[in-house]
C-alpha cells in the first residue's frame, strides 16, 4: 500500500496515517481485483460510504486517487475533479505515472495546493494552475 501514491485531503486534514488509509484502499483494491477477474469495465461503483464521509476513488492503472467528501458534495463533480487533477499532472509530467508522483511529491503538493485549498476548488484551468510551477522551475534553473 505504500507503493501507491495515495494522498487525499478533506477540508485541510490529510489522512496520512496508514490506519485510516487502510480500509478505503483495501476496498478499492478488492474492487479492482474483482473487476479485473470479471473483465468488466465498471463492475463497481466508485462511491464508497465510509463512516460519515463518502469516498470517491478513481483508478489509473496502478494509481488510485481517493477523495473523501462530506455528504453535501456532488459526487459526480468530484469524480470529474479527480480526472481534471490527473490531466494537470499529465500535462506537467508528460504522461504521468505513479513513479513520477512518488519522486516529485513536493511538486505534486504544489499542484494540489493550486487546485484545491482547504477542501474547495481554487482553479481548474490547466495552464493557470501550472503557471506558478513553471515560473518556479525557471527560477530554479537560472
Amino acid at each position, binding site marked *: 500500500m*505504500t*507503493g501507491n501514491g495515495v*494522498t487525499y485531503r478533506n477540508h*485541510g486534514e*490529510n489522512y*496520512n*496515517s*496508514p*490506519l485510516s*488509509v487502510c480500509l478505503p484502499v483495501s476496498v478499492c483494491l478488492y474492487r479492482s481485483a474483482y473487476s479485473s477477474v470479471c473483465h468488466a469495465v*465498471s*463492475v*463497481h*461503483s*466508485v*462511491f*464508497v*460510504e465510509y463512516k460519515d464521509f463518502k469516498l470517491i476513488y478513481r483508478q489509473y492503472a496502478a494509481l488510485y486517487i481517493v477523495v473523501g467528501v462530506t455528504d453535501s458534495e*456532488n*459526487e*459526480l*463533480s468530484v*469524480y*470529474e*475533479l479527480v480526472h*481534471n487533477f490527473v490531466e494537470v499532472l499529465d500535462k506537467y509530467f508528460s504522461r504521468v505515472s505513479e513513479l513520477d508522483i*512518488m*519522486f516529485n*511529491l*513536493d511538486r505534486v*503538493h*504544489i499542484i494540489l*495546493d493550486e487546485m484545491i*485549498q*482547504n477542501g*474547495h*476548488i*481554487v*482553479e*481548474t*484551468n490547466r495552464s*493557470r494552475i501550472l503557471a*506558478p510551477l513553471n*515560473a*518556479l522551475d525557471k*527560477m*530554479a534553473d537560472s
Partner: protein
Amino acid sequence: MSPSVPLQEMIRAIRSARTQCEERGVIQRECAAIRAQFRQSDNGGRSHNLAKLLYVHMLGYPAHFGQMECVRMIASPRYSEKRVGYLGAMMLLDEKQDASLLITNSIKNDLSHSNQYVQSLALCTLACMGSAEMCRDLAPEIDRLLRASNSYIKKKAALCAVHIVRKVQDLGELFTPAARSLLSEKNHGVLHGAVVLITELCEKNPETLERFRKTVPDLVQIMKGLAISGYSPEHDVAGISDPFLQVRILRLLRILGRNNEQASDAMNDLLAQVATNTDSTKTVGNAVLYETVLTVLDIKSESGLRVLAVNILGRFLLNNDRNIRYIAMTSLQKIVGSDHNAVQRHRGTIVDCLKDQDASVKRRALDLSLALVSATNIRSMMKELLLFLSSCPPELRAQAASGIFNAAERYAPSQRWHIDTILHVLTTAGGDVRDETVPNLIQLITNASELHCYTVHKLYRALLADISQQSLVQVACWCIGEYGDLLVRGECQEIEPVQVTEDDVLDALETVLQSHMSSPATRGFALTATMKLSTRITDNVDRIRSIVSIYGSCIDVELQQRAVEYNALFKKYDHMRAAVLERMPVIEKNSPRVIPMESPQGRPSRTSSQPKSSTESHWCPNHLLTSFSLPVCGVSQVCDLLDLLGGSEETLQPSPAVGGSAPGLPIHTASTAGGDLLDLLGGLEPAPIAPAPTVPVYEKEGVTLTLSCEKQSDSGLTVTLTASNSTDSDISSFTLQAAVPKSVQLHMKAPSGDFLPARGTANVTQMVVLNNPNKVVSVEAVPIRTASKSFFPLQVNLKMRIRISYTSQGSAFQDTVQIDSFPGFSAAIH
C-alpha cells in the same frame, strides 16, 4: 553517521525494502540523520531534509520533531525553503500544536510580500490550519487582499475568507461587501471563490442570506453565460464550459431559493433551460444535471419543473453506468417522502438494483425499496426483499431484516402471511435480527388463534431442520411448549399431515437443550417448554420428569433454578401443576400509540400520565358560555353521556389536574336550560339514527337558533341552521357567519333570507356544508380558535363558531356561539 541522501535516493531505498522491518530500519536511519541536520544551524540542504521528513510523515511515521524546523524555514528569505516550510506547516501543524502560534507573524509578513507566490503560500497555509486567533488577527489583511490585488491572489483570498468565516463567525460581516463585489469579476477562479464565500456566509447567517437573495438575478445571468451561450476554451471540460463553477452556482441558488417564492421564480427559467440543454452523454453533463435536479427539488419550483426533475432522475436510473444509478437512488431517497407516487413509478428498476453486484448500489436500493413498500405492493415487494435477504452482504442483513419486519407489521395482508414472512426471515437471517423480535413474534402468534396449529407445525419442522438460529429456536420452543397438544394430534388442514409422536417432540426439545449451539436463553426456553408439555401430553410424563431433574444440577444458574422449581412442581405441588402450566392468555400489544381505555369512573383531579401532554388544556367555562347555562356534570355522568352519544371513542381521557382549573367538565352540548342535558340526549339515544334531530344552540333575547345535521358522505356533513324570532319586534339584516377548525372545509350556501318577523311567524334557514377530509381524531391536530379548548376528544375534530348579527328596533346586535357537538354527525359516524 551516514551522510544524508537526497530525497530521491531515500525514496528508492524505502521502496526497495522488501519487508516492513527493513523499511522501518531505513526510515529510522534517515530520521536520525534528519534530526542531526536540523540541529546544525544553517546548511544548504535544509529544504531537502524537510522534504524527506514530509515523505516519511506521509508514510505514517512520527514526524513531530520537524515542527520547529518548519517554523524556522517559513521565516527564511529563500522561496524554496519557504515553500517546503509552509508545506510542512500544513501537514505537521494544526491549531492544537503550540508551534502554530509562532508562524502567525511570518504569515502576516508574507501576506504583504511583493511576490505574489509568497503571498499565495501564506494564504494557503492560513486557509488550511489557521486557528481562531490567527484568523482574527489577519482578517483585515485578507479583506484588503480581496479588494485590491490581481485575480491570482483574489481567488485564494476568497477561499481563505471562507476558512476565517468558519472559524470566527462574527467576521462574516467583514467580508460581506467584498463578496458582493467579487461577483462581477470575469475570472472564473475568482468567481468560483466568490460563490463559495457567499455560500458559506449564507449558510452561517440567515440575515446575510436575506441580503444575498438580491444577487439571484446576477447569478442567473452568469449561469446563462456559462451553460447556454458560448464555448469558452479555457474552462471547457468535454464540451461543457466550467462545469465546476456551474455546479457551485447551482448549489448557491439552491440555498438562496429554499423557502422563498420570489427567488425560486427567478430561477425557474434558468433551471429548465439547463436541465434540457445540458448534454447528458458524458459524466460531466450528468454532474451538472444532477446538481440541477437537486436544486429543483429543494426550492419552491413549479410543478412542471419538478416533473422534469423526477424524469431526469428516472433516466439516470436506467443508465448503464452504475455510478449514475447510485446517485439517482440517493436523490430519490430524499424525495420519496414528498413525491411518493413519482418514485413509485420507478419501483421496478429500483427493485432490480437490489440484485446489483455493487455493495453501495445495493445499500441504496434497499433503503429506497423499504421506503416504497405500501399496502398495494406488499406481497410482490416482500418476495423481492426476502430474495435479497438470502443473498445480501452481511453488513446489510440487520438493516434488511428490521426493515422487512417493519413493513410486514404495517402492511401485512393477513396474519398467516405475516407469520410466514417472519418465519422466513428467521430461517434466513435469524442471527441478525434484533432481540425484541422474539417477543413480538410470540405475541403475534398468540393473537392468531386459528393459526396455532399451522404455526406450530411449521415451527417444528424448522426446528428439525436447523437449530443454530437462536431466535427461531426460541420461538419454536415456546410454541411447542404452548401448543404441543395440537402438534401431536397431527390434524391441520393447511399442511400435509405428518405424524408427530410425543417422543419426537421431546427428542427435538432435548436436542436443543443439549446442543452446544444453543445459548443459555434458548436452553431456558426449551426447558420451560418441556415442562409445559407435561400437562399437554399424556404418555411421557416420566421422561419429562427425568429431563427436568437432570438439569437440577446444571452449571448454569438460571437453568438450575428453573429445573429445581419445576422439580418441586412435580413433587410437592403436583396438584398445582396443571393450573400453573395452562395456556397463556393472549398477550396485549403494549404499544405507546394506543391509549388505554379509562374506566367510566373518571377521576377529575387525577394526575394522569398522558402521552399527549400537549393537549392538556383547561376549560374556561364561563368565558364563552354566558349565553346559556351549563350544567357542570361530574365526569362520570359525562362519560355516560358520551356513551349515549354513540359508542365510546377509544380515547377517553379524564381531565388533567391542571392547576385546579375546573372541577368538572362541562360539555358544550346544546342545552337551553340546566338539567335538560340528560333528557335531551336521552332523546337522541340508542342506535337507530334519529333522522336529523334539531338541537337548539342559541337562545338569547328571543332569538333562537337551532341546528340539525345530515351526513352526506364519509367526510361531509350538511348543517342546517334555523333561526326564529320570538320577540315582538321584527328583526332585520339577520346574518350568520361561521368558522370551523383549519382542517375542515366550510361552504355556506345562501340563506333563505335575512328578515325574521316577530313572534316566530317565519324562519330563516342557512345551510352550511362541511367537509372534514382528514377526519382527524387527535386533539392536537386541530388548532381551535377559541378561548377554551375542548379537552374531550368526542367530535373534537368538528366545531363551529357562529357569529350572529342582526338589527332589532334600530340597534345592532352581535353575538357568538360555539357549537361543539353535532348530534346527527356523531350518531351517523358509527
